[in-house]
């Protein structure tokens, strides 16, 4: 994957939320970074630090309190089909069958496709996600992991250029998780996408990313940006290499420190 010019630019972004008690909570503190075209960036940091908040700004669901997030030079003002989002809580449509969920985006005016093409895309993703036997099931009949895969299929189906993924593999068992990671890398190699991935798994971040952004405890700042030197395509065997192990240990150390910091803040 060759990396292009900056596309998403965080410029001195801060976010504060009003608390029910009438005060304010400082969540994101003066964060600046770039995500380049066809780059895979992972964001990792303690739970509750503000990762989803940052992704919500890129998705267009909220504005920062201060600073800007720009896409191709324009401040982001709302959601759009160029930015596919895989939500932490899936958001699978309960009133549609598995097949209809995947087809939902393809039936919209923004990405209307012919019925044959639509059917082909649905079949393909149901097969890749292991959902073919459940094509006509309601989401309530699926397991948590299956719902998560359905959300992935629904987002991939409309081929957005950007993928904003909020712990997209969190509910999956280790085997399925590896399969989904490799599937994601295949999709990226074939379609050349730009990815912002939020994850709690250091292993996953190192395996998938060009760069890893480690965030501090709240109010979150950038702790360190780590370049991942491995070339694509990446293979399963990479996990066992010495370099991989060293990088993983480094990132894990940073994350652990931030968790310790968070625990200390809670006590005081």
């Amino acid at each position: 994957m060759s990396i292009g010019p900056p596309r998403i630019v965080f410029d001195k972004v801060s976010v504060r939320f009003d608390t029910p008690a009438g005060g304010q909570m400082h969540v994101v503190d003066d964060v600046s970074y770039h995500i380049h075209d066809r780059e895979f960036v992972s964001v990792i940091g303690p739970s509750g630090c503000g990762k989803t908040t940052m992704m919500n700004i890129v998705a267009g669901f909220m504005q920062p309190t201060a600073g800007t997030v720009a896409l191709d030079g324009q401040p982001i003002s709302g959601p759009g089909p160029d930015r596919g989002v895989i939500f932490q809580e899936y958001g699978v449509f309960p009133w549609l069958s598995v097949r209809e969920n995947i087809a939902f985006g393809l039936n919209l005016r923004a990405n209307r496709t012919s019925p044959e093409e639509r059917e082909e895309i649905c079949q393909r993703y149901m097969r890749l996600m292991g959902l073919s036997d459940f094509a006509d099931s309601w989401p309530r009949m699926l397991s948590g992991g299956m719902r998560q895969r359905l959300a992935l299929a629904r987002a991939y189906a409309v081929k957005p250029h950007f993928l904003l993924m909020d712990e997209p593999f969190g509910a999956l068992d280790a085997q399925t998780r590896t399969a989904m990671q490799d599937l994601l890398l295949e999709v990226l190699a074939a379609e050349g996408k730009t990815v912002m991935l939020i994850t709690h798994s250091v292993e996953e971040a190192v395996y998938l990313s060009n760069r890893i952004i480690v965030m501090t405890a709240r109010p979150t700042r950038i702790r360190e940006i780590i370049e991942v030197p491995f070339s694509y395509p990446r293979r399963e065997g990479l996990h066992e290499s010495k370099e991989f192990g060293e990088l993983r240990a480094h990132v894990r150390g940073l994350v652990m420190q931030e968790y310790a910091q968070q625990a200390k803040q809670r006590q005081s």
Partner: protein
Amino acid sequence: MRRAALILAPWLALLAGWYGIHYSGLINPALVPTPHEVAKRFVELMRDRLPMDILMSTRRVFLGVLCGIALAVPVGFVLGWYKTIRTFIDPLINFFRALPPIALIPLVIVYFGVDELAKTVILFYASFFAGVIVMYEGISQISPIYVRVARTLGATDGEIFRKVIIPLAVPHMLTALRVALGVAWATLVASELIAAQQGLGALIQNAGSFFQLDIIYVGIICIGFIALLMDLGLRTLARRFVSWQERIA
């Protein structure tokens, strides 16, 4: 077989209890007609005025609920969806909802006279306020995530309304309809206090003035059963339309 027995059992128990009270002597037996007396009276009345009574009452309930729900659905939707509007309108709704329809009868007579319109207005009132509450409570609990997902897939406002909000609102509409029907049947007797000649409420009123207890029982049981049948019908409809739901509320 087992299911049929389980469904019948409470009804049989009710009948047994009824006979028990009649024969126990705890209450003057003249004040409690037996089930078979009531059944006999039912057959007699079916050859006489009862079919017309049932027809009139059902028609009034139908009309009242239809108009009530036709208004309750959009109003409930707006109140549920726009939290700010709701904050201001909510007390108003609760004010009117608390007024028992019977208390409004004198006013309704003044403004709408004593014929069909007046009765329909009372039923409309009752079903509107019952329906609107169910509707907006339901709508306000819809998770915003589905709208967000649809937006990120490229849906326009119109598409979000048709493909996300309507499907999510349908179950609440059906529940509102069921609740409104129940309330409307409960209000029926009150609405037919307004100089009705026909209708189950009128039948009960008349029988009351002549102390014909068996007829009163026939009227009450008819109301109960018709309401039950309508509810069953609606639930079947709901099962068909919202089979995606875990459980039909």
